[in-house]
């Protein structure tokens, strides 16, 4: 038994893999997997820890994720406390020194984006507030562009032999993305000033970018499930300040928004929120295309 274990340990230490092919990238959310795909193409093998049907605040550092984090060369997350419930554990328990905070193998998008809704006071009585501001930053396409710049640099840094290709791919992406932003802003001109109700504060960046006016949230406090009492009060508010639609993401329960929407006679709209959140949203471009299409349909 003892001999077997010692021998086993020795073999394991000696058998460590030394060379590898494509960069192994693990992202916390699907939007960063999609962005990495744009910037790295087949230079990286990318997988996402969460899907569009999962709430990025609440998943577990389950064994399959630990096994992925163990082998990752680069871990890309949103940061700003979005993944505070599971990411620190994932980093600590994976036995991978490269993906620790402060190391080049850990990339935090929030560091390179414009962050809004920074709270002025911090109290848990306010619900699930994030000290560093609203973390759902990928729904402002200008943030995506900024994060892409920084991520391309990071990819080049940890995979120097392909550095030029990352620079090249980023240049190409930035051109296509800027053109798309121009197109989207033109398409969405009519959405400016449209009043909406949101399920959770994960639409703040989209609203900020498009000029949607958020009347209220379905959640009484961020991260607290909508209650019957709160929804009833909201109906009163909507009488004096009518909204056009109620927005929710694919991972949120449709019940509260459908309940409210049917009572006040407005549209309950499910938006993809991230890549994979609808059959149309297969990459970052189609995510925005599909989001705008759904918004415009309901705003008419």
């Amino acid at each position, binding site marked *: 038994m003892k001999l077997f274990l010692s021998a086993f340990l020795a073999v394991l230490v000696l058998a460590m893999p030394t060379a590898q092919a494509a960069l192994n990238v693990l992202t916390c959310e699907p939007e960063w997997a999609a962005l990495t795909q744009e910037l790295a193409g087949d230079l990286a093998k990318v997988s996402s820890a969460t899907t569009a049907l999962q709430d990025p605040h609440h998943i577990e550092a*389950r064994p399959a994720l630990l*096994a992925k984090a163990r082998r990752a060369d680069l871990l890309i997350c949103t940061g700003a406390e979005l993944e505070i*419930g599971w990411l620190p554990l994932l980093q600590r*328990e994976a*036995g991978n*020194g490269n993906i620790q905070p*402060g190391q080049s193998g850990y990339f*935090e998008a929030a560091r390179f984006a414009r962050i809004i809704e920074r709270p002025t006071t911090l109290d848990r009585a306010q619900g699930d507030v994030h000290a560093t501001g609203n973390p759902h930053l990928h729904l402002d396409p200008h943030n995506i562009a900024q994060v892409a710049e920084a991520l391309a640099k990071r990819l080049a840094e940890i995979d120097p032999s392909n550095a030029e290709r990352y620079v090249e791919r980023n240049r190409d992406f930035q051109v296509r993305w800027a053109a798309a932003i121009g197109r989207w802003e033109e398409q969405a001109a009519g959405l400016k000033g449209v009043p909406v109700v949101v399920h959770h504060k994960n639409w703040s960046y989209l609203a900020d970018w498009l000029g949607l006016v958020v009347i209220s949230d379905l959640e009484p406090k961020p991260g607290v499930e909508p209650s019957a009492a709160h929804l009833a009060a909201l109906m009163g508010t909507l009488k004096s300040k009518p909204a056009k639609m109620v927005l929710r993401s694919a991972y949120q*329960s449709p019940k509260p928004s459908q309940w409210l929407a049917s009572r006040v006679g407005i549209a309950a709209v499910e938006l993809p929120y991230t890549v994979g959140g609808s059959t149309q949203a297969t990459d970052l471009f189609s995510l925005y295309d599909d989001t705008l299409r759904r918004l415009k349909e309901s705003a008419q």
Partner: protein
Amino acid sequence: MFDRLLIATGIALALSTPLQIQAAPQDNTTALNAFNPEVSLILQGAYLDRLGGERHVTGFVPTGEHGHDVRGLALNHTELVFAANVDPYTRGFVNLAVADEAVEIEESWFQSLGLGHGFTVRGGRFLSGIGYQNERHPHQWDFANNGLMHSVLFGEHLVQDGLQLRWLAPTELFMEFGSEVAKGQFFPGSELGADKSGAATWAAFVHLGGDVSTSHSWRGGISYLHAEPAQRASIVDDFNDIEALTDFSGTSKTWLADFVWKWAPNGNSSQRNFTFLTEYFLRDEAGDLACDDNTLDGGLCTGLTDRYSSEQSGWYAQGVYQFMPAWRTGLRYDRLDSGSVNFNANNAVFEQTNYDPTRWSVMTDYSPSEFSRFRLQFARDQSMRDEPDNQWTLQYSLSIGPHGSHKF
């Protein structure tokens, strides 16, 4: 020999840490808290309705630890937790259990951050990684009390003062190999057994796990614990129902098998989710048992020492279902097998029972947020022969401060 090898390996790995870490940090990433360290408090209390007197599990030697069984209204211990990265290479964690006139160090350890190659070293006082439930603090338990076999074997936890080395394989399947060497002064070890150079207790475990689909994930494992107690004291009732002080010297071997399976639709646990957990324990002890003379009290012990051997087992299985946000309900069944116990010359003093203790527990809890939980539990406890009991528990568990994430 094996324990020395492990200690040496652990130290060697710990010393090689800086090679893996680049000195200059890339950027200032968001800290868990603007303050250093993260400080949090766990507040726990309960109302317990049960039969009076001391309850023990028939046929099993008591560990000498009585945790959450105070009758009536009770404040359970308050946990004070400090955690922080010491530097880029090490993390520190301290959990102090505070009670009246007592502060107990539940855990106080350092853990390597950047060894790489899948290795993690932990040293100090920590909850052993054997099995599943052992690493969980009471506020993480799905029921108001621990599994019956777990409390029989280890009390609240198996706590180790020593060194733990874990290695995660670079495979798609989650494969974790762990080993621990420890002083071994806690049950099933003993103070005297731990009074030596080297280690009186060592443990090894393997955990496998993965996802079956986005909705299903699992983890299973096998663990082994080896302890060498010397003059480990236990109070056991003899045939005349008189308390007898026994002490045991020998080896204690425990095998554990654990399996957990979790389900959430599309992996989204916020609305509904289900967890199934089961653990099996087998303990094998062999050595000498001395029994202090208690004839003056009317007992049967004459101070005789003779060979003692026992092989006992037990298991539990539980399911916990979150049927709507904030609400969960769960059912647990505990069953112990008294197995075979041989006192040899002392067989005339102690009973060899074939009673199989069992317990059913059912609970419902409500968590208004991830920082608070209120629980109602009912248990039909048949762990003590001839004294079945219906137990009601109403319990709260609150956490203040940045509360670290829980393991799968």
